[in-house]
């Protein structure tokens, strides 16, 4: 027997499931620690996508419980539209089964690998089937599945299926149990925090063994679900074009206009001419060579970028800055970026970089990501930031790449690949932010001069007055005229003395100050005179609000006992007309 024959006996097709069993790292299951994050990430991605499609505000519950020495049970439950029972086994029990792979619009999940990979991983490490409960509406009953994957064939293996009493009207709950550790707990919470940043419309409740965390929603607005669009002529590849052409009954011009996005009559005509084809030719009758010529022509003719308002879901200007929509290989994308400066950010060390792709935080491989490289490539020194590779100082940089197909470096979706078109947009967005930051810092410095003066006049001069009066043995000189003369503003002062906090509002403007005084600190001000009009407590911090009217040249005062500190603000008057000074600082 010849060798080839012998080899032929061993040659057989490989199941995708088998392939991934041997290549777990491609899916983000390379270590037990990462398994938890990857699973939650995949389940949360699905949940958010589903809620978006159903136009409901996502309410997602996540639980991680230790059930054995190194066995963890992970539950992710959402209030999405649910999955019809017939589909459940395929969604969770078959790799590469998904609803979104063939659509051109922005989604978090794309290939339909993620969650079934987790099911596979559970099966490999604990042998336990995964449990899925799903309900599609009030009229339908919920179904409970125990699912595994037949590794040799990549087909779902349904261990059990039965109707189930569930208190949710609609939604999906998945329970997966596998070997892992919780050593990446911090990273997990970081992931959830960042996810909640870019999904302000979602609420996350997390139970980690005995600890509970809630990431509350900040926006009540449902995100408009991205709509699928036609492929863009610049992004089409030969195989796809051939498939589309074979299935079409149309004439070439109509095929181009209707089958692709942003192609009009004129553009179609131009393409036909460039390809040397008749606009009226039947598409299905075109030869391979003619199709090749058509493909070349389609790439050559300039076509506007796809309309991103339909197919992409940016986070929005309210939260971050959006760049212009652009296109790479026919996939539209939008870069959004934001920059944070000062506040509680650490003053030393590298800037914090938050990377997101299609509203999913990227947690690993920061160094390999195009976003990081772009941040390093921008010359931040011209925006007055120090830089050693990455910018340094109290800076946070957020970059979100939204695309109908985010080009990741690998299937574990940790880092965005270096695509020149995307890199260009990221750099432009960052430079834009750099200019804004520079402006902001210089304005802030200007405000600092005003604040510095206020501090001198309101805090130090009174002390000087006290000391000088003591030296010359004369009655204490009143310094409030200096304050008024210099400031011509409404001045709010807060100080602590002998366990008593006093807030004083002096109105040196020429008109009535109708204002709200916001005092946020750990004191509840129960004994305040006058009483606060309104008090709320969040995590031990009390917000006290007094609504008052202070006539010109008059002073309003409140005091209560407590520890002081915190924050004081006056609202209802323009910024330039007020000055808030904490004398304890």
């Amino acid at each position, binding site marked *: 027997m010849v060798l080839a024959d012998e080899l032929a006996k061993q040659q057989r097709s490989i199941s995708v499931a088998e392939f991934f069993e041997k290549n777990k790292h491609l899916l983000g299951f390379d270590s037990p620690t990462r398994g938890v994050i990857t699973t939650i990430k995949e389940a949360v991605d699905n949940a958010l996508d589903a809620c978006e499609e159903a136009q409901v505000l996502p309410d997602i519950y996540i639980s991680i419980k230790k059930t054995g020495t190194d066995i963890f049970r992970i539950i992710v439950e959402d209030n999405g539209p649910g999955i019809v029972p017939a589909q459940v086994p395929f969604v969770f029990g078959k790799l590469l089964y998904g609803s979104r792979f063939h659509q051109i619009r922005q989604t978090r999940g794309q290939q339909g690998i993620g969650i079934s990979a987790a099911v596979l991983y559970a099966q490999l490490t604990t042998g336990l089937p995964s449990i899925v409960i799903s309900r599609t509406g009030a009229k339908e009953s919920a179904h409970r599945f125990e699912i595994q994957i037949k590794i040799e064939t990549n087909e779902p293996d349904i261990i059990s299926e039965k109707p189930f009493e569930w208190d949710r009207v609609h939604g999906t709950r998945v329970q997966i149990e596998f070997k892992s550790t919780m050593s990446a707990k911090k990273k997990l919470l970081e992931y959830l925090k960042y996810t909640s940043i870019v999904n302000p419309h979602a609420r996350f409740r997390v139970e980690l063994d005995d600890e509970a965390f809630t990431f509350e929603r900040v926006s009540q607005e449902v995100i408009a679900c991205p709509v699928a669009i036609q492929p863009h002529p610049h992004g089409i590849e030969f195989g796809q074009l051939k498939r589309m052409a074979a299935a079409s009954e149309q004439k070439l011009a109509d095929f181009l206009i209707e089958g692709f996005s942003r192609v009009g009559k004129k553009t179609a005509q131009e393409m036909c001419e460039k390809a040397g084809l008749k606009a009226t030719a039947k598409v299905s009758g075109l030869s391979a060579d003619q199709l090749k010529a058509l493909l070349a022509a389609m790439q050559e003719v300039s076509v506007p970028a796809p309309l991103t308002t339909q197919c992409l879901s940016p986070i929005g200007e309210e939260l971050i800055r959006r760049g212009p929509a652009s296109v790479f290989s026919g996939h539209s994308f939008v870069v959004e970026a934001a920059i944070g400066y000062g506040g509680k950010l650490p003053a030393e060390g590298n800037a914090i970089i938050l990377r997101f792709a299609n509203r999913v935080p990227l947690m690993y491989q920061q160094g390999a990501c195009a976003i990081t490289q772009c941040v390093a490539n921008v010359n931040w020194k011209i925006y007055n930031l120090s830089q050693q590779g990455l910018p340094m100082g109290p800076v946070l940089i957020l970059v979100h790449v939204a695309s109908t197909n985010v080009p990741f470096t690998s299937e574990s979706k940790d880092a965005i690949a270096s695509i020149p078109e995307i890199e260009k947009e990221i750099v432009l967005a960052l430079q834009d932010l750099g200019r804004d930051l520079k402006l902001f810092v210089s304005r802030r410095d200007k405000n600092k001069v005003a604040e510095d003066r206020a501090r001198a006049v309101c805090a130090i*001069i009174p002390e000087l007055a006290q000391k000088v009066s003591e*030296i010359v043995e004369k009655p204490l000189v009143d310094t409030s005229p200096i304050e008024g003369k210099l400031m011509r503003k409404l001045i709010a002062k807060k100080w602590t003395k002998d366990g008593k906090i006093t807030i004083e509002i002096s109105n040196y403007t020429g008109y009535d100050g109708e204002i709200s005084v916001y005092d946020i600190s750990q004191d509840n001000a129960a004994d305040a005179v006058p009483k606060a009009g309104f008090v709320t407590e969040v995590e031990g911090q009390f917000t006290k609000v007094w609504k008052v009217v202070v006539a010109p040249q008059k002073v309003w005062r409140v005091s209560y006992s407590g520890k002081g500190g915190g924050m004081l603000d006056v609202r209802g008057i323009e910024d330039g007309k007020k000055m808030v000074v904490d004398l304890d600082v």
Partner: protein
Amino acid sequence: MSKEELERQTMSSLLSIANAWYDQMKAGDIPSISLPTRTKYNIEYDDTSEVWKYGDKESLRTAATAKSATHLLKMAYVIGFVRQQLIENRSSTLREMYYISEGWKRAKFGAQDESNFLVEDLEILTEVPREGFHLRPEEDGASIYGPMRIKEMTRRGLKTIHCQDDVGAAGYSIPNNVENIEFVDHDAKFVIALETGGMYDRLIENGFDEEYGAILIHLKGQPARSTRRMLNKINSTWGIPVLVFTDGDPWSYRIFASVAYGAIKSAHMSELLATPKAQFLGLQPSDIRDYNLPSDKLSEKDVEALNAELTDPRFATDYWKKQINLQLEMGLKSEQQAFAARGLDFVTKKYLPARLSEMGII
């Protein structure tokens, strides 16, 4: 001026600063204070007093920024502190005041430099030396040996001291506050201020003070304020000439300059601290040549310093030009103790008598 009078004047000067601030604030104005700019660009030669003083450039400090307001507040605390010292007749060192300021909250000093600078500001404003504030400098005064009698108010009462008969071999230690010394009488023809302790001891051991009626003062390198004040007072009280005897290098010439003309840091006190009539005795560059003294080569830094002195108005005389150019030409420098190469008695028996008669002192 008697001690009581000085105290009264100090108190009233200090209070006038505080009063001015009080009045400014009472009028609804931001308190401020005006001070001469204290850089070398604002140093001028005063023909009448023949010393270097601060010029007309003034800077106004207004309490309109947190920094300036804090500066004024600190000044107020120092005034308050000095006032208390004067009332209670106590004194403290600058360092002690720096530590006391720990309790001054916002007015606390960040570093001792800051408190020193502030006290100098007050000296300028009140025209009272810091000793008048009962603030003692950290640096100790040098010693003095020679035929003179002084009275000093000590903790154990008024003492009369003869600076040869009543002192040990090292001489009389100059107190920090020279204002407390009363100059009784003397039997001296001149004063020699010496840079090094070695030469000071040599002259005492050789009995030079007795033989020539000389008052010897050890400068200890760059002289302390009290040492310079002592020289100034001896010169102005008794009118006897002051001679400065240092090493023969550019740095030592600057010691002479600070004795004779004053220093930038204390230009406001020049009239009290400088002795414009002081003369340079040696060691002159020409002495290196004439006595063939053991010498070292000038370093680059030395040459730079000599060149700088050639353009310094304080050395703008024919004498200094000739000497400095000569030294640059030779490229050599010598220490005053190099005379020992010619025998331990050489300096007292040969060099000093010859040089002093050349200067017309003896």
